[in-house]
């Protein structure tokens, strides 16, 4: 008789056993139902704000007034921040056709966003949403629009908005984003019963949140702070540096974890008899978010001035948040992140 081998550390195994004893399946399902509902709200927001962005792009190109331009930028910001809130979800329909990369091609060390936008501006021929559908990830998402709306060299060129070709590109990309947002939202609701009835999604969702916090700490904040790689501080390693929203995007992502993930997770922790861990997580999220009360939207002004220590404080709070997830939440709920299962080939 073959033996069944579990490589979980014993402590985790016992805690997981305890979970199965105390958590009834209906409680677990309620937690997944809540998570599905909350994430669904996040996608719905993304869908609505993306539609507003597409409408606003068309309105601006029809009547390129200062007022319409301000509204267009504001709608870009709202849609982009909606994406940041739900960006932690790395499974489900967002995985299809590299949709996450289509929404935001990042990081972009070779500045492909600039070269691909430039390429399409200098092509002749039709430029519609159908063109963008097959044009590649660097020109399909929010960063390409950000380039059209904020890149200083472009704004001073004779192709600057509202030039006809640039307007065609603007409306095509924003329609592509809106279309993708509808696809991912519909896909998310289509998988409701599958998500809610598949217990593995508890661990999958927690692992997604853990990865998201690590990406924020290490790559979205730590890398531009010079805490990784060559040690140099570099604002261009952050996301959304063109629009000056690098820190605001991090705030939105943490808000997303707070509102779209934390409530459902809390139900799971309650069911496992670990309400104290739920409270610890909520406190860490609140502390991390409170940093932004005194921070600007962008990161560049803080990297080389007195403000650097406020970035360090945020970094430390992200570290503490990550520790609660890794050291408390994951072992309590029996969540194990594999090496080959999470990054194989």
């Amino acid at each position, binding site marked *: 008789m073959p033996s069944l081998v579990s490589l979980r550390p014993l402590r985790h195994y016992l805690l997981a056993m305890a979970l199965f004893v105390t958590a009834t399946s209906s409680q677990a399902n309620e937690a997944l139902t809540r998570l599905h509902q909350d994430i669904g709200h996040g996608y719905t927001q993304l869908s609505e704000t993306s539609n507003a962005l597409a409408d606003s792009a068309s309105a601006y190109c029809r009547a390129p007034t200062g007022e319409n331009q301000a509204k267009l930028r504001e709608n870009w910001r709202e849609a982009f921040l909606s994406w940041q809130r739900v960006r932690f979800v790395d499974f*489900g329909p967002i995985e299809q056709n590299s949709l996450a990369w289509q929404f935001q091609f990042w990081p972009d060390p070779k500045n492909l966003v600039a070269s691909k936008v430039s390429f399409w501006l200098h092509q002749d021929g039709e430029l519609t949403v159908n063109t963008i559908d097959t044009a590649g990830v660097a020109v399909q998402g929010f960063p390409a629009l950000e380039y059209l709306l904020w890149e200083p060299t472009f704004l001073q060129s004779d192709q600057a908005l509202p030039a006809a070709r640039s307007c065609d590109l603007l409306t095509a990309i924003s329609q592509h984003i809106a279309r993708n947002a509808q696809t991912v939202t519909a896909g998310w609701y289509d998988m409701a019963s599958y998500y809610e009835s598949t217990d593995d999604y508890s661990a999958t969702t927690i692992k997604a949140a853990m990865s998201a916090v690590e990406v924020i700490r290490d790559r979205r904040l730590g890398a531009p702070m010079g805490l990784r790689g060559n040690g140099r501080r570099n604002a261009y390693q952050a996301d959304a540096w063109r629009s000056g929203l690098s820190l605001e995007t991090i705030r939105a992502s943490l808000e997303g974890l707070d509102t779209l993930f934390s409530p459902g997770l809390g139900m799971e922790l309650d069911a496992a008899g670990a309400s104290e861990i739920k409270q610890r997580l909520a406190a860490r999220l609140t502390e991390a978010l409170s940093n932004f009360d005194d921070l600007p939207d962008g990161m560049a002004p803080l990297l080389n001035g007195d403000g650097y220590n406020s970035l360090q404080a945020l970094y430390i709070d992200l570290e503490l948040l990550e520790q609660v997830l890794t050291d408390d939440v994951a072992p309590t709920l029996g969540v194990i992140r594999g090496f080959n299962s999470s990054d194989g080939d």
Partner: protein
Amino acid sequence: MTTRRQVLRLGMASLALASAPMGCALFQQPTGTEHLLFSAANTPEGNYTLVGLDSAGQVRSQVTVGDRCHGGCQRPGSRQVLLFARRPGRHFYVIDTLSGQLLASIDAEPDHHFYGHGAFSPDGRYLYTTENHYPSGQGVIGVYDASTGYTRVRQLAAGGIGPHEVRMHPDGNTLVVALGGIQTHPDYQRIKLNLETMSPALLLIDRHDGTVLQRHEPSHQQLSCRHLDVSPDGTVIAGYQFQGPEWQAPPLIARLDSQRGDFRELSLGDGLQSQLRNYTASIAVHPYLPLSAITAPRGGKLLVINHRSGELAVTYDVDDCAGIMAAGQRGFLLTSGTGAVFQLPANLGALIPLQAPTLRWDNHLTAVTVA
């Protein structure tokens, strides 16, 4: 978590296996050979290392390298084992299996990167590697002459995009290639650029002139054919990774009788199929037993099939298991990303833990036999 149902199911499987005619086949192995295991691994500090273990789990060699590695192959008739940098890899490493020394690091051609696998001609002279010519996106088989320090002498077309694992067919003239079908480009990291149009296949390619002798396509266009192994009688077992929606659970294991061109996919039943989470990591076909082992780390499953009958023999639950290789009379050796090394005995009894260093064992084991 072990459930009663799993225990019962496994019990049935092992009963069924007891009647399989495997006992006599066990003893065709040459005596006096030693089986070593080579694998890429990450140290607890996050360094990339290439490790050689004996079949008791003792470290025979260990070198630190600059990049994460993937698969490998032994050079026939020599003391050399090669390990390839992981996709998009820029190097492969040549190691002396006895001294454990790194003998050479060979760079990829300009505009090419490795996919992480290679295979030798039976005489040990020519090495065949799967590569991406990324300006065109086309897959190629690079041909290297080991007798001249691994100079790249020519290349063959790989029959499409994304060739991944390659093995030498027992006829000595044919390459068996798992064509993953997925287009990537180093500028875009590991983003899959063509999921809507991918066209995976299992291929037999003449190593002398590049002719595609057989092409077998998976039952779904998004089943990326990624890994494989071949038995001495030409039975190929291939493993897929599904790129489509996670709420679907298509077959992930294919069996090709290459003599007859008979290609089939194995059905595991809905329950087990969906537990594999649409992902297989490694395949090992045993050369003397009718058994093949398949790892599925996302589902935490090790599967053993009878590759003659195409039937499932047994499954084991092993978290994050990936590396697997045949090890003669000792059955198979298995590693996991959580640090475990096991022997899977030929009688398919309980897994036997080996005392080996706790490393994050990577995707593949490379079998090395020493006379």
